[in-house]
């Protein structure tokens, strides 16, 4: 039997959390993430509406220490406050799952389309950005990455952020979750055990202790990169222009490439599915290919993705990079086509 459903992005996120075996949601209402919270509640799942995002974040830290799969969803200024708890989760390697719905500005009005929380999601805490950040493109991928966020967070013990946006959560479409629902869950485990005593610091007396702890976490993060880091590539084999886009801008880019190919442009796409860890080897291979003449990073922010691309790309790969900024603005297919047509190689 087909599992095709006509549902919204928020409902997809809720379904993914339920199917992932999430046991508790702590939340504070904020557009456009509210429907994830209310959708979870309407499905009669356990929850607590906290007094702010700070409390939601630390309640999750407490819950996962006790071995419960807990999560939250937030956006914009709430995402800023959530960095307090996320910083504890990062430092103590807690499987903290956040669905972050990006929005433009503080509110209200421009709360739908934005990619301005990339740096915040990846590097927002008082730490080194050792967290898993997923950027879904489309509702089926939103489902898949939410499932992955729970699984990989509990497996590798890094906080995980599904970095989506208001537009995606409010999109209603036909989705087929049948195959994706077969993903197996990684069960939670008590980090503070019931049968023995542990003493768990988050603060170190000596710089050397902290240094050692951070290096060990960094090594673990690098070791899982091959397994976790992922990207989608389209039409890259002969491409002279590579468009780099993520999340919702990736959807417009896919459409643009179809048209541009018909018009004879040798253009392809590299779309990071994970922003942390980044699919660095794949990026180097695609952009380092000899026929590639130009890299065009397109995003709904002032170069937050472009900074990551520059940082991750091997320094010996010397290609011309154009960074197009549409901060807080929707990027439509025709705009991408117009920009690529203007490029001279």
């Amino acid at each position, binding site marked *: 039997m087909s599992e095709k459903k006509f549902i919204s992005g928020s409902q997809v996120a809720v379904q993914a959390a339920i199917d992932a075996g999430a046991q508790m949601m702590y939340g504070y209402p904020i557009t456009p993430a509210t429907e994830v919270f209310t959708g979870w509640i309407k499905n009669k799942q356990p929850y607590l509406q906290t007094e702010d995002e700070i409390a939601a974040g*630390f309640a999750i830290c407490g819950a996962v220490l006790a*071995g419960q799969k807990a999560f939250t969803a937030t956006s914009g200024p709430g995402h800023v406050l959530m960095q307090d708890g996320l910083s504890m989760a990062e430092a103590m390697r807690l499987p903290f799952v956040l669905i972050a719905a990006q929005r433009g500005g503080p509110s209200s009005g421009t709360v739908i389309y934005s990619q301005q929380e990339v740096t915040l999601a990846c590097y927002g805490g008082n730490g080194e950005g050792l967290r898993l950040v997923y950027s879904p493109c489309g509702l089926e991928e939103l489902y898949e990455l939410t499932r992955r966020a729970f699984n990989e967070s509990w497996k590798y013990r890094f906080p995980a952020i599904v970095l989506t946006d208001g537009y995606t959560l409010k999109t209603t479409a036909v989705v087929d979750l049948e195959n994706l629902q077969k993903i197996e869950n990684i069960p939670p485990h008590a980090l*503070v055990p019931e049968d023995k*005593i542990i003493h768990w610091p988050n*603060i170190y007396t000596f710089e050397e202790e902290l240094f050692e702890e951070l290096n060990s976490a960094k090594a673990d993060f690098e070791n899982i990169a091959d397994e976790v880091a992922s990207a989608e590539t389209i039409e890259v084999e002969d491409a002279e222009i590579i468009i780099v886009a993520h999340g919702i801008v990736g959807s417009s880019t896919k459409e643009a490439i179809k048209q541009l190919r018909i018009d004879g442009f040798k253009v392809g796409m590299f779309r990071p599915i994970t922003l942390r860890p980044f699919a660095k080897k794949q990026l180097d291979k695609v952009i380092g290919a000899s026929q590639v003449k130009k890299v065009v990073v397109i995003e709904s922010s002032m170069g937050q993705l472009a900074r990551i691309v520059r940082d991750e790309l091997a320094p010996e790969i010397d290609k011309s990079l154009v960074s197009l900024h549409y901060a807080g603005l929707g990027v439509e297919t025709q705009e991408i086509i117009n920009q690529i047509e203007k490029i001279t190689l």
Partner: protein
Amino acid sequence: MTDFIPAKFCPGCGYPIVLMMMHNILKELNLNTRAVLGLDIGCSLLAWNFLPINTFQTHHGRVTPTMLGFKRARPNSICIGMTGDGGAYAIGMQSLAHAIKRDEPITVIVVNNTVYGMTGGQTAPTTLHGQKTDTSLEGNIDNPISGPEFFRPLAHKDAFFARSAVNEPKQIQEYFRKAFETQQAGHFSMVEIMSFCPTHWKTKGADTIAHLNELKETFKLGII
């Protein structure tokens, strides 16, 4: 666990007394294996390996939401948040107020020494009017907050609020016993302990005790 772990608190600090009394009562009630001690940041963080009970450090002002998250996930645990007066009544006040309003079944122990000790003795919400600190060089212009009295009206009738002092060991233990029993009965409990901070009070020996006893005039001991 029989290893001797030296106290890392300043000489003359009241925290080790509070921790010892707490542990005595947990053992007496046979709760020590189910107890989980969360530490706010402030001087309490130094207790992370002090007692043979499950212990972890959190962030400044955030021990209350962390412990209620733990308690909701593992209801048979005895969740204790230990915090200073700054963590409880300044940066953590919003979370504490709402935990009380919701009658979360956790125990919050507030060690009140009227200053921010860990950061060097700045003005706290509990600093006395006129008290000189690093951030009130001419003396504090505000009046102190009385935590348990402030929060009591928000709380469930069966919640437990009390204040004791580190030189009243019998009373501390009586209140801790009631606090943990209240948690087991499914209600919020909070015990504020007036403590001394000779380092930042800049007092010695008898003067430290005398100042603690003076504080009892402002911060009345008893069940609230």
